[in-house]
């Protein structure tokens, strides 16, 4: 018997509610004191197709999903053949007995096939066939011996706004499934046991982690245009806007979104633009406007596979070098790529401080896997106490009142940062211009002033570089191979490193990059000195992190593990690449 170490997968069509019910079940497991890693997988369509949600459960914190499945809940015929090969020995496939699954698909060595009238029970208990997802998860609870109370507490919360009848129907559906599952529990060896007295934990995805951080960091203006997987930040902010004093604008396009954010930031609001790569492509010209007018704006790009429409609901890390060089001309920018939910929260508030302190755009690079994957986190992981709101050299009204002489918005300074005054004050009557300008903001084409302004802006990079964190090391110091990664690849790679070292001590460690630009050259050079064999692991075809490392340190990687099939890495996939690449 295996206790508290398994993956449950529920599969159906778009519109069957596999994602919402799967996320709800994650919360129930967390309330039962267990750690989860939940991952939705869905196609770019509203109805039909094949969607599934995987819930990995453990007593230890989880950083990744894995490939093997212990219990499959099939709401559609297609679910069975698609995932049958992933089921471990002793595992089970629960399927709706209404489904017409071809008999030859209902046989596999060591797997139980359990036809259960999910739809009939849903209709009987909840009056609607859609509730079969609830029945199926009730069956999962019954089979694994997990407690029904945790599940029902989430149902009460999640369905509350749909009214009493819907709540009661789903509670009854869950219970009916639970009782049905219990009938087969004796022959099912994977069990989930409530951990008594576990502390309450958060169940969040990277979208929520980043949004919480941004709100805590004083984000008060959000403009965006829907694009998967960036729009969930827009939705989160919209849901919280009225209550937390945020102005949220769903704009006519991404060009309007970024330009509105620049306008709001110019006036003094902390402004955010959530998007994905296609939307960011439209924002490129305005990025340069923020650069030359020294306007602090935060742009969040949750990457998906390109080029162009690419794979809208899939995963890739293909936009790093594009974001680093986007827009004509040269100007400083921050490029930050959180790789974990913890880093999403910190990046969420820190990006606004960096943008305002250096009066330049801060670009945040997330990705699909990070944006949608759900993890359990201890409450203190999101440390609201340490959140700071640092507006940098922003002149207060009193300072402006006391200012003698003329205010110079683009004063040449040693740090490159010119004290900033917000429009609205009699001393703050100045022009900001996309043209090259002098210290007052007046257009100039004089070579001396042009040179002085370029150098002023570039000088900010000195201070900016000091703000950048060194790549975070993970694993033992003396190892055969050092992996480098960025973004959400951290999770699966971290687990792969753990497994390698568990097999044989001292095999691998990893260096995880969050601060990508300004590139922490000295810290990286030092960190890489002791690396014997360097292997990059990235979800793209051209090894963009390896390119960045080589360009800045001269160090080439010895091998690359790359993937560009639209799916995130798993620890198993990385381990399978290791014998040939390492």
């Amino acid at each position, binding site marked *: 018997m295996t206790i508290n170490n398994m993956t449950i997968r529920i599969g159906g069509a778009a519109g069957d509610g596999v994602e919402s019910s799967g996320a709800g079940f994650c*919360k129930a497991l967390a309330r039962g004191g267990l750690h989860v890693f939940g991952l939705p997988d869905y196609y770019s369509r509203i109805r039909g197709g094949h969607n599934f949600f995987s819930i990995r459960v453990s007593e230890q914190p989880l950083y990744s999903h894995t490939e093997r499945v212990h219990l499959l809940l099939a709401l559609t015929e297609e679910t069975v053949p698609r995932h049958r090969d992933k089921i471990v020995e002793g595992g089970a496939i629960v399927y709706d007995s209404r489904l017409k699954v071809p008999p030859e698909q209902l046989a596999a060595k060591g797997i139980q096939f359990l036809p259960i009238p999910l739809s009939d029970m849903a209709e009987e208990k909840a009056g609607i066939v859609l509730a079969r997802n609830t029945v199926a998860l009730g069956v999962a609870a019954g089979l694994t011996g997990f407690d029904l109370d945790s599940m029902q507490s989430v149902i009460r919360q999640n369905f509350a706004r749909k009214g009493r009848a819907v709540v009661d129907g789903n509670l009854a559906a869950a219970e009916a499934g639970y009782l049905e599952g219990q009938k087969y529990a004796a022959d099912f060896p994977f069990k989930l046991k409530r951990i008594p007295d576990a502390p*309450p934990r*958060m*169940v*969040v995805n990277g979208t*929520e982690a980043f949004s*919480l951080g941004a*709100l*805590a960091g*004083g984000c*008060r203006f959000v*403009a965006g245009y829907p694009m998967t997987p960036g729009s969930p930040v827009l939705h989160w902010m919209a849901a919280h*806007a*009225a209550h*937390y*004093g*945020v*102005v*949220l*604008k769903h*704009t*006519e*396009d991404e*060009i*309007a979104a970024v*330009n*509105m954010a*620049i*306008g*709001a*930031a*110019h*006036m*003094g*609001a*902390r*402004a955010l633009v959530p998007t994905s790569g296609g939307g960011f492509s439209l924002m490129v*010209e*305005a990025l340069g406007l923020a650069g030359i*007018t020294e306007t602090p704006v935060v742009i969040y790009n949750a990457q998906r596979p390109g080029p162009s429409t690419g794979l809208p609901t899939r995963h890739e890390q293909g936009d790093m070098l594009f974001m680093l060089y986007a827009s004509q001309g040269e100007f400083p920018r921050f490029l930050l790529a959180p790789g974990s939910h913890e880093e999403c929260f910190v990046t969420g508030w820190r990006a606004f401080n960096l943008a305002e302190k250096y009066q330049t755009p801060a670009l945040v690079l997330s990705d699909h896997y990070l944006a949608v994957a759900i993890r359990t986190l201890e*409450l203190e992981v999101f440390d*609201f106490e340490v*959140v700071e*709101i640092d*507006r940098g050299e922003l002149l207060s009204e009193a300072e402006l009142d006391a200012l003698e002489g003329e205010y110079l918005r683009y004063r040449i300074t040693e740090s490159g940062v010119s004290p900033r005054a*917000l*429009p*609205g*004050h*009699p*001393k*703050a*009557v*100045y*022009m*900001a*211009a*996309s043209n090259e300008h002098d210290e007052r903001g*007046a*257009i100039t084409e004089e070579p001396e002033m042009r040179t002085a302004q370029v150098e002023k802006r570039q000088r900010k990079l000195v201070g900016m570089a000091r703000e950048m964190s060194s790549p975070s090391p993970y694993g033992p110091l003396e190892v055969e191979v050092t992996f480098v990664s960025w973004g959400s690849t951290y999770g699966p790679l971290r687990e792969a490193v753990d497994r390698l070292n568990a097999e044989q001590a001292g095999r691998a460690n990893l260096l995880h990059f969050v601060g990508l630009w300004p590139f922490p050259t000295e810290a990286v050079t030092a960190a890489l000195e002791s690396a014997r064999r360097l292997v990059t692991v990235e979800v793209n075809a051209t090894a963009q992190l390896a390119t960045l490392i080589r360009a800045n340190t001269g160090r080439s990687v010895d091998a690359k593990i790359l993937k560009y099939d639209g799916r995130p890495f798993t620890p198993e996939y990385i381990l399978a690449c290791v014998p040939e690449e390492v």
Partner: protein
Amino acid sequence: MLTREDFAGRERPTWCRGCGNFGILNAIKMALAEQEIAPHQVVMFTGIGCGSKLPHYMKVTGFHTIHGRSLAVATGARLANHGLKIIAVHGDGDGYGMGLGHMLHAIRRNIGIVDIVQNNRVYGLTRGQYSPTSDPGMITPTSPEGAIDRPAPPLALAITAGATFVARGYPGELRHLAWLIGEALQHPGYALVDVLQPCVTYNRASAYDFYNPRVYKLEEIGHDVTDKTAAWELTYEWGERIPIGIFYRVEGVPTYEEQVPALKAGPLVKQPLGKLRPEQIETLRAEVI
């Protein structure tokens, strides 16, 4: 009491002698002075083009943005601080070409922006190409056989899209133009002031000699500015007689900014910016447990 001198700038305009922009610049200064709006109480957003350099030539708070996007930047600014007057100034290439989409959406929102379009019906700064409002057949570097595109009808589009203030002025009628801009500044929502701007270098056929004998004031014919159909029809009068004045004006339509929940407490940038309070953190945590 403000006067035009309070808005005097330090830079010399780079415009050609006789450019219609001189009149527009004067009219804006006159309107601001008459409305008692000081240089720091207004922010002027411009695009790219000869006319978009306008705020550099006066004393005013301004943001010279990129081509076609000034209304988007201005919208963000208005939402961040609706305590200030927001004016957009840009040409017809900027406003009716690249920025036409933003104009229709600004109209839909009835956001409090005075939108002044210097409509010289040609591209000046890029040297004489035809614009979205050029006459068909106009021969220019990008239309050597004559322009094929039919001109955009900006005023009709604005009325159709739901604009609450639609006017047209002419710098040859300076006092009248200043009055129009003043009326637009008093209007709570989006206000379009299309200006027939002579370009004496690249569009001589549509300069003073063309407009002077043709323009007439809508006030003189007793046009009812609340009559949408009549206003719409008048926007198409173009030939021997060309109307200027207020075509359409409707009161009582709520502005966008007055409907945003977060702005009920006053301009966004005037609201305190602090860390989340303990009870807010509790609520946010409770959502994810």
